[in-house]
């Protein structure tokens, strides 16, 4: 049970004593009042269980003090019918912030930026699409394997790994491990700080990870010619379609 603060309990006790003095009755607590009245009422109706009748009677005593002979019966010092059940401290249900956060309205501050970014992106895609056509080669032909055959650019890192390792290692184990490490990152990195100077290890590791794939994709995209052999694009030309 929640502890009732000292000053509130004192006030309640004073009020109760005052109410008892005003009515002239010797009853010291509301429970004894309720039990005496319920004793009288139980004889009138026998079909209702005694404990329910007790509860109902006690409730009616408290909720309708005007009907009883004593105006002060079961009410507070000012005739009010509420009473203090528990005190809930503010911290337990409300997230009270000690320091105010500097905030701005989303409209216009954020929406304007988002609108401009979307507009810029639309313009860029539109202009780029006007001047550069998407590739459409000749009809798919199962009997004519192009040389080299390349996967989409984001999978070229994997295809590059295929030249070095067994397909199971290159196609499943290494990318699988990479993905699992990526998903697990927040659960493995126990360092609570977000400041770059405190996270040198995490930042180095991620940079190596990202560069690993970026370099592989670059090599696969631009430095692989016929037979997926290593070539320099400035010598042998580009073998790359988006």
């Amino acid at each position, binding site marked *: 049970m929640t502890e009732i603060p000292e000053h509130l309990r004192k006030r309640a006790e004073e009020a109760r004593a005052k109410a008892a003095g005003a009515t002239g009755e010797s009853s010291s607590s509301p429970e004894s009042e309720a039990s005496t009245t319920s004793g009288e009422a139980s004889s009138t109706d026998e079909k209702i269980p005694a404990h329910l009748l007790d509860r109902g009677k006690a409730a009616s005593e408290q909720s309708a003090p005007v009907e009883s002979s004593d105006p002060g019966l079961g009410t507070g010092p000012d005739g009010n019918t509420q009473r203090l059940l528990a005190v809930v401290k503010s911290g337990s249900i409300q997230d009270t912030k000690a320091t105010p956060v*500097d*905030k*701005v309205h*989303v*409209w216009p*501050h*954020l*929406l304007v*930026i*988002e609108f401009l*970014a*979307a507009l810029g*992106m*639309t313009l860029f*895609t*539109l202009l780029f*699409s*006007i001047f*550069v*056509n*998407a*590739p*459409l*080669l*000749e*009809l*798919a*032909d*199962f009997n*004519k*394997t192009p040389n080299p*055959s*390349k*996967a*989409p*650019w*984001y*999978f070229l890192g*994997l*295809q590059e790994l*295929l030249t070095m390792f067994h*397909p*199971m290692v290159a*196609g*499943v184990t290494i990318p699988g491990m990479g*993905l699992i490490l*990526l*998903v697990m*990152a*927040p*659960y493995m*990195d126990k360092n*609570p700080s*977000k*400041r770059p100077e405190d996270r040198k290890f995490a*930042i180095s590791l*991620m940079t190596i990870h*990202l560069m690993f794939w970026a370099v592989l994709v670059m090599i696969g995209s631009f430095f692989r010619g016929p037979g997926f052999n290593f070539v320099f694009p400035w010598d042998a030309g580009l073998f790359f*379609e*988006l």
Partner: protein
Amino acid sequence: MSEENGKKPAGQALQERLSQVGDRMQNSQTWSSIFRPGSIFRKGYSDSPRNRSYVIMNSVMYHLHPVKVKRHAVKVSYTLCLGGLSFFLFILLTVTGIFLMFFYRPTAAQAWDDMQILQTAVGFGLLVRNMHRWAAHLMVLTVFLHMARVFYHGAYKPPREFNWVIGVMLLQLTLLLSFTGYLLPWDQLALWAVTVGTNMMGFTPVFGEQVRFVLLGGVEIGTDTLLRWYVLHVLMLPFVIVIFMAIHFWRVRKDGGISGPL
């Protein structure tokens, strides 16, 4: 002159008449039922904190946002807009993709011909197809860069661990969406890129052959593969990615807005 006779010049009279009509329209029940409080089209809109809040709360599009955000969260130098641009590219891809669907049949006999007709005989067909393709490549790029940005800001740390996991799922879904779309033109580039890609998946341990069979709808790429990847590309993967995006955006707010400042 007409002014001496107490009459106004025709231009001014017309202007007054127009503003009267405008007022009547804005006062009508129809108008105020369409534009809710806070709309800039509503009569008597003024730039007040109350209206700034209403703009967000009373719009189905904007209410993805909170009414207020931390001041540093609107700095372009912090987010580089990468997450928002990824979402915007997804919308752009949906719109252009719906357009393309009108002119495309996913069968080996018709797909490539439909692409030719789309590019040569359909108004804006070539342009929209170009936009769809470039936006798709761009989206892979922005999602990837968004992930890097989030990592370097340490934004995956508590309480945002799970949203990072959702984000990695979204990256994979983006790659899958792009890869399934790659086959649809049914040209040499599509066929052989997908052949290389799915051969790799065949090396999945234990049930590699089965994975490949389910993905291709057979032992080899064919018209069944095309239909299968078409449905994945236009319906199933977008459906799944939208659910993941909803969770992603919702968690951003539940986890206390975007991270930082550093």
